[in-house]
């Protein structure tokens, strides 16, 4: 006779921590979002008033919020396919051979994923610098004009996005490489005997078998882009003129630079809702796709 309490004993320590440091804060944010709380609240709680949905109304009328939302959307729409395709393609190529050279290369592709963001910002700022950066120096060798990597409103989006893609592929390559180990060799051999070429085998056999991995990577990558923060924070601080301000950067600035906690909380709740809805849609689409 098994004890009915057993599973609860196993889940409760982790659940307790998750609820305390993950779920509880968003509930607090939801409560705060209905107030006009700012830093003066800490001097006296009488400085806090209930304002209902005012923060939400202001938020949806705030052009800066819409700009941040637009940027985040753009980053996600371009960035998710970029990371998924790039890491899948790299993994497929790395999987072509199991010899020592190919194995050693994996570590190189993983380096960006393990580099601390502080270090990332240092290195890339030097690479991108308009006057003294390496990229513009290389361009100058072929006679090209210097490029304003982080100062041009459109190019800066590309530049911070590129760093995020660079950092984001490593872990996904590993996930795909792992999933590739689950593709039965016999299928591929059978297809070879039938005269299928490499392309054909990749597209008709391998990729369909990687469906779940692709789905998993897409979902986690989408969430990561919707919470996009680190790269613009350290490289451009959301500039120039808000061109690289994501919703997370917007929230951070409202909360920690302007100390408008009520307003920032309203933004957090909206961002959380957006992420939840998009993730649920992805889950629903997948269920419709293969009826598990």
């Amino acid at each position, binding site marked *: 006779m098994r004890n009915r309490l057993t599973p609860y004993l196993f889940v409760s320590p982790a659940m307790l921590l998750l609820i305390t440091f993950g*779920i*509880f804060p968003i*509930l*607090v944010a*939801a*409560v705060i979002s209905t107030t006009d709380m700012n*830093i*003066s609240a*800490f*001097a*006296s*709680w009488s400085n806090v008033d209930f304002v209902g949905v005012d923060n939400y109304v202001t938020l949806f009328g705030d052009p800066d919020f819409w700009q941040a939302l637009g940027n985040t959307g753009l980053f996600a729409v371009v960035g998710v396919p970029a990371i998924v395709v790039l890491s899948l393609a790299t993994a497929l190529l790395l999987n072509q051979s199991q010899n020592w050279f190919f194995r050693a290369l994996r570590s190189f592709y993983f380096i960006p994923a393990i580099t601390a963001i502080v270090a990332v910002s240092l290195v890339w*700022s030097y690479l*991108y*610098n*308009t*006057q*003294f*950066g390496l990229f513009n120096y290389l361009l100058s060798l072929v006679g090209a004009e*210097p490029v*304003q*990597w*982080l*100062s041009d*409103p459109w190019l800066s989006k590309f530049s911070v996005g590129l760093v995020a893609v660079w950092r984001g592929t490593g872990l996904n390559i590993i996930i795909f490489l792992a999933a590739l180990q689950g593709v039965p060799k016999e299928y591929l051999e059978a297809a070879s005997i039938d005269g299928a070429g490499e392309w054909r085998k990749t597209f008709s056999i391998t990729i369909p078998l990687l469906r779940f991995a692709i789905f998993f990577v897409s979902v986690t990558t989408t969430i990561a882009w919707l919470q996009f923060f680190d790269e613009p924070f*350290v490289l*451009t601080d959301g*500039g*120039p*003129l*808000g061109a690289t301000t994501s919703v997370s950067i917007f929230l951070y*600035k409202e*909360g*920690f*630079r*302007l*100390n408008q906690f009520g307003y920032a909380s309203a933004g957090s709740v909206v961002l959380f809702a957006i992420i939840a809805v998009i993730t649920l849609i992805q889950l629903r689409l997948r269920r419709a796709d293969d009826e598990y």
Partner: protein
Amino acid sequence: MKRTATSVLAGIAITGLALGVSGCAAQAPAEAEGPLTVWVMGDSGENFQKLVADSGIDVDVVAIPWDSIDEKLTTAVASGSGPDILEIGLSKLATFAAAGALLPLDDELANYPGLAPENFPAGVAGASTAVDGKIVSIPWSSDTRVLFTRTDILAENGIDAPPATWDELRADAKTLTARGDGQYGYYIPQWDAPLPIEMTWSMGGEVIDADGNVDFDTPEFADAVDLYTGLYADGSVPTNSDFDQQQGFISGIAPMIVSGPYLGKGISDAAPELDGKWQASPLPSGDGGSVSLFAGSNLGVWYNTDQKDASLKLLEYVSQPEQQLAWYGLTGALPTVNAALADATLNSDPNVKVYTDQLATARVLPIVANWDGVVGTGLLNALNAIVLTGADRDSSLATFYDATKGLK
């Protein structure tokens, strides 16, 4: 079923919030024993420890990275558990005083003659940096803006002295830009919100009205905007936001820069071979003279410290002229005590003489809550939109005036 779960969780949330709050309310005011915790900005923690080694007061120094001051201070204020003493930039003073994080010192100063406002330059002491009429901080280190020029490059281009007025600076910058592709005459940091205000002061204007409300809609500010946008229109300044001023100065790409003493120190450290080929000179003047920024940082006492007396004793200790000079020796940050600023040895360096002279007439930014966040950001956004994206000048400025008018 689902609904009950949600309401239970909401209940927990509210109780938890209340607990978090009550947890930080109670604090005993009695004088405690033990080391004082001092928060200093940047990597000068070790140096501060050295400075106070002989003070007879046990001190624990915590260095806070520049980029993370906002998070650190906000969370400390939120919980009420902070250090005993903290270094705070003048631009954040009003915000954190309004949050009640800083102990008002008016009643204490009488017992600590070393902290009397008369010891410090009038521009930064006492009433000049009081918030709501209360003194909440003591000046600690000072910083100002002066003009740095590469005299060798200027001379090669027929300019025999650093420009003394903004008009001269604009003309010289044009000359220097004509040196060739990728060369500039001057550099405007796109993050430097005080620069347009220094320009306004130099034009003889103010950015707050007689009642202490923010007001930029003045003819002098318009002159400053002409100057700022004019330098861009001439093509005399780089338009990229990631221009490195130290590298730009050393390489000669931007041979004139308005910056602080740290630039002087950076140049001597990184390029000793340029010695004698550059100099500091007073900020260019306009109709209102050469009026620069009094920046730097103050020290405040955390509102619920349990070691008020020891904290004030330490403040008095580091406000002694010899300690202030020792700090200059350790970090290159200028003193704020009059006696130290007038020190002959300090002023034997001609560049330092320029800094200390400039400080005599320099002014602090208006002490307005959220100055950085609202006014500074708004000002830079408006000006940069005009010069970088060609936004309409009148409408950009009008938006900025509306957003800031009447703040206090």
